[in-house]
């Protein structure tokens, strides 16, 4: 099919939206190590002690287990897990909302237990098994029943809290495969949804419970 425009400017009518999405662009930036340009902001160590700690402080080069894979990574002592996952490992599925343990968008599983990654120092969990929203899919990339049910129940509205809701839902079904509606409500009570789609999320997890 002939293109309407020959210029490479953004074409609002084009259906070819996959050429360079924002997501792949950000991941590309991270992979290319361009982050060094923003090192001051990224690591909080500009102009100061760039070794990241004095005598007795933790070793920065560590290996953490994320989604079943051992990932070597350079972690500052003052680095949160959300920061490591998003900015060092490119796992941008984990979102940062409040950065104060008050919204739940950054929820991940640590040894199977849901935790706010924004309020966890990476060094404090480096010997544990971390599962992010990227890690709940099946071996061939098929959606987890919780994710599939969320699509069917139109659970995400703006979608920003969805990764956290997915992780909370998956963790619940892992420890309690047949939760009551109240148990689901309780399990999701640490995940804010500013669109107010709570009932849809609860419906989805109740639906997924039969399939997980």
């Amino acid at each position, binding site marked *: 099919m002939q293109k309407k425009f020959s210029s490479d400017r953004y074409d609002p009518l084009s259906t070819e939206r996959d050429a360079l999405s924002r997501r792949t662009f950000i991941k590309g930036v991270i992979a290319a190590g361009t982050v060094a340009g923003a090192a001051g*902001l*990224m*690591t*909080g*160590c500009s102009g*100061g*002690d760039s070794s*990241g*700690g*004095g*005598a*007795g*402080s*933790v070793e920065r080069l560590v290996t953490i287990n994320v989604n079943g894979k051992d990932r070597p990574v350079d972690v*500052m*002592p*003052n*680095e*949160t897990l*959300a*920061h490591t996952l998003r*900015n060092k490992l490119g796992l941008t599925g984990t979102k*940062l909302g409040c*950065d*104060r*343990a*008050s919204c*739940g968008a950054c*929820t991940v599983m*640590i040894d199977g*237990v*849901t*935790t*706010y990654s*924004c*309020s*966890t*120092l990476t*060094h*404090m969990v480096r010997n544990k098994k971390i599962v992010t929203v990227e890690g709940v899919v099946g071996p061939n990339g098929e959606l987890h029943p919780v994710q599939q049910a969320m699509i069917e129940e139109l659970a995400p509205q703006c979608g920003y809290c969805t990764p956290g809701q997915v992780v*909370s839902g998956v963790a619940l079904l892992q420890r309690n495969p047949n939760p009551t509606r109240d148990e689901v409500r*309780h*399990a999701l*009570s*640490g995940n804010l949804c500013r669109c107010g789609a709570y009932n849809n999320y609860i419906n989805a997890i109740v639906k997924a419970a039969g399939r997980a």
Partner: protein
Amino acid sequence: MKDMMPNFNLVQPTDLASAISLLTDAGENGWAIAGGHDSLDWFKDRIKRPTTVVDLTGIDSLKGIRETADGGVEIGALTTLTEVENNPIIKEKFGLLSSAASRVASPQIRNKGTIGGNVSQDARCWYYRSGLDCYRAGGNTCYSDTPEGMNREHCLFGASRCVAVSPSDTASALVSLDASMVIQNSSGEKVVAATDFFIGPAIDIENMTILKPGDVLTAIRIPATWAGAEFYFEKVADRNSWDFPLVNIAAAIKMNGSTIEDIRITCGAVECVPKRLNVVEDIVRGSERNEDTANLGAGAAARGAVPLNYNHFKIPLMEGLVRKAIRG
């Protein structure tokens, strides 16, 4: 993109002696971290800037729940609130603490937040939290206790320049259960009653507890005294998740037939320390457990309260909770 908190040395000892030695050496520049929810907020806001942060979570001796020889329990300070909530011994004997732990913050916070941290957390006054130079922060004014100050969440009792309240749900339960706190530092171990562990602004305006730099709260002991008693816990907050209490109530009642043989009743978030309601206890002890007794007790609950401009509502709220707790 969020920026990062200022840098610090993170040290991860695996035994208590090393942790105490590190914290003692660091003094005022040291900080003990466990669950990290309170700590990291302070660091991110650049209000507290320790140079040495000691991660206690690698010290296994501070974890777990053990039955003691006298029939009570000892809870390691690093035990998570979720573990406290679901522990079968605590559920069976001290259901009050289990209920209180289940009402703290959100599931994710309870999964990592520790009981030691929950009782040692700092004041939640937002003026103080936002870094203003108030009395508690070493300054010479209170921004909350003013005609326009936002003091809806603040105290009814025991104000002394500062009007912050005890924000902990488990603290109220622990005071009612006659718990004691085990504290270790470089000169050894001491055990203090929960009622002495929490301190008000008249004693030390900059600290909510007696913990000093170099001290580590290692365990909480609950004696058998109230094991299996009847319990009542209720927390009233603006939101059912995350939120700190506007008022909470924790009561333990021993019955003899229909008579209240003995009672402990403690109210949180109305004073800088969990407020043990001795007067109410004295009024209802020995009486039938019924509506009349509940009303008598409730009438005395808020005696002596000095409300601020926006927190009068806490008085009837407190009385109502005491009434419900006694009525059962």
